């Protein structure tokens, strides 16, 4: 029963938003300011090849950024755990990297790496790695001392301790970082496309805006939102699978 409700809920939200949107367009707002749902649907259908291509570009940028960000985040967290001295040097750098807004870095990255995919992937990576590093490192540091002591009395080697105890114990924190990363991943790619690109949904939106094709802009936005939601849901599902032993109190309610 509750499973069914959970499946239907997004649909209800979607239809509700559509209705509100439609109601607002009835007030006589000109089409170039707020297109009706119908015109946007039409734009979606007519431009399906064009939009589909740019959708895939943005999707691949986000996917690559997510992979690189995850990898970088995990490597940094493990490095900092193994070497407290390196951690003292790395931590300020990490914090500086987050203190500078990606918006400010975007033009430079485009200048250095060009209009292609690389600059967007780097930007997404910059946004993604930090929550992963911070949460994973936190999890690695806070291993229950009793578990480590037990492993020690059982003559566990350093690698076995890392693999069977520390990594497993840090997975719940890693999962939280992963969820945040998935939610912010599209930001980096879109900003990069805004600043300078020849493809991607961000480029489509900028282009459509300049030509007052507001309905195309909305269509791109719709696709972007869809991508973000599916991404977050997929990550959430895999995190749940990964953390099969963590009781999920929101599920039992």
């Amino acid at each position, binding site marked *: 029963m509750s499973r069914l409700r959970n499946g239907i809920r997004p649909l209800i939200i979607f239809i509700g938003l559509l209705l509100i949107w439609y109601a607002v367009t009835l007030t006589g707002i000109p089409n170039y300011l707020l297109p009706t749902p119908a015109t946007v649907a039409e734009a979606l259908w007519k431009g399906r090849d064009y939009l589909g291509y740019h959708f895939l570009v943005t999707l691949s940028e986000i996917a690559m950024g997510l992979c690189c960000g995850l990898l970088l985040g995990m490597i940094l967290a493990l490095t900092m755990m193994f070497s407290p001295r390196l951690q003292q040097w790395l931590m300020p750098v990490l914090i500086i990297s987050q203190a500078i807004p990606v918006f400010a870095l975007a033009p430079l990255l485009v200048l250095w790496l060009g209009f292609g995919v690389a600059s967007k992937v780097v930007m997404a990576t910059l946004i993604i790695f930090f929550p992963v590093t911070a949460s994973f490192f936190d999890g690695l540091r806070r291993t229950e001392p009793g578990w480590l002591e037990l492993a020690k*009395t059982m003559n566990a080697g350093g690698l076995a301790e890392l693999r069977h105890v520390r990594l497993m114990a840090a997975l719940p924190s890693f999962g939280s970082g992963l969820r945040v990363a998935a939610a912010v991943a599209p930001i980096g790619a879109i900003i990069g496309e805004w600043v300078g690109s020849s493809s991607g949904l961000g480029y489509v939106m900028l282009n459509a805006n300049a030509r007052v094709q507001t309905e195309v802009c909305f269509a791109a936005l719709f696709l972007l939102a869809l991508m973000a939601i599916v991404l977050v849901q997929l990550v959430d599902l895999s995190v749940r699978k990964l953390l099969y032993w963590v009781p999920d109190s929101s599920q039992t309610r």
Partner: protein
Amino acid sequence: MNAISQNPLPTAASLPVGDAPPGIVVKDLALRYGRQTIFENLNLEIRSGEFIALLGASGVGKSSLLKIIAGLATPSAGSVIGSDGKPLAGRIAYMGQQDLLYPWLNVRQNVTLGARLRGEKTDDAWADHLLEQVGLAGRDTLLPSALSGGMRQRAAIARTLYERRPIVLMDEPFSALDALTRAKVQDLAAELLTKCTALLITHDPLEACRLGRHLIVLAGHPATLGEPITLDGLPPRAPDNPQVLQSQGRLLRMLTELHQ
């Protein structure tokens, strides 16, 4: 639950090692944190195969002593060796205050944890036997979160025994259980640990009197060990055994007097 107490005494197959287990010799042990001395010149000899219960107020240094013996903490001075003159490393199994079951492993995987951590092949027949002994047969695929407190503690006992270590150290392992479950788990532990040298920390005089051969009180600042109280008869002794009741009263009086 009832199945536990009806289980037969451990057969030869469940014994940790063939030979007599080594005793523990603690010599001139000292532990200091900065200027604070927890204990000094501590000497204790536990003979082969004996079950010692160590009592004392919280914060007196019982757990620290146990961790030093287990090799988990370093003393400021002194030494701990086996009564055979060899070091104890690798011959000790340790049970902490919590069951410390790894939540991502199921019961069987937790019981065979030692093999997993050392990269050895698991001894499934031995694990089956132990699970049967602690009354968890058929529950081996459950995750710890699906177990009751008593079942978790029994799984921890099975994990401790799986190691086949001749010396077992326990740090208040049953303190979190309710009275009835605690009594059952105590019976089980006493039966399964008869051939081991065992040191049990507890703050429960009844538990000490039911399980211990010698009872020793650690008290004072810096802490010293009191004269041992020796009890006859095989553990687990019945809770209404006159000797248990008498020693329990004596212990409680000693502890309250020492505390003032």
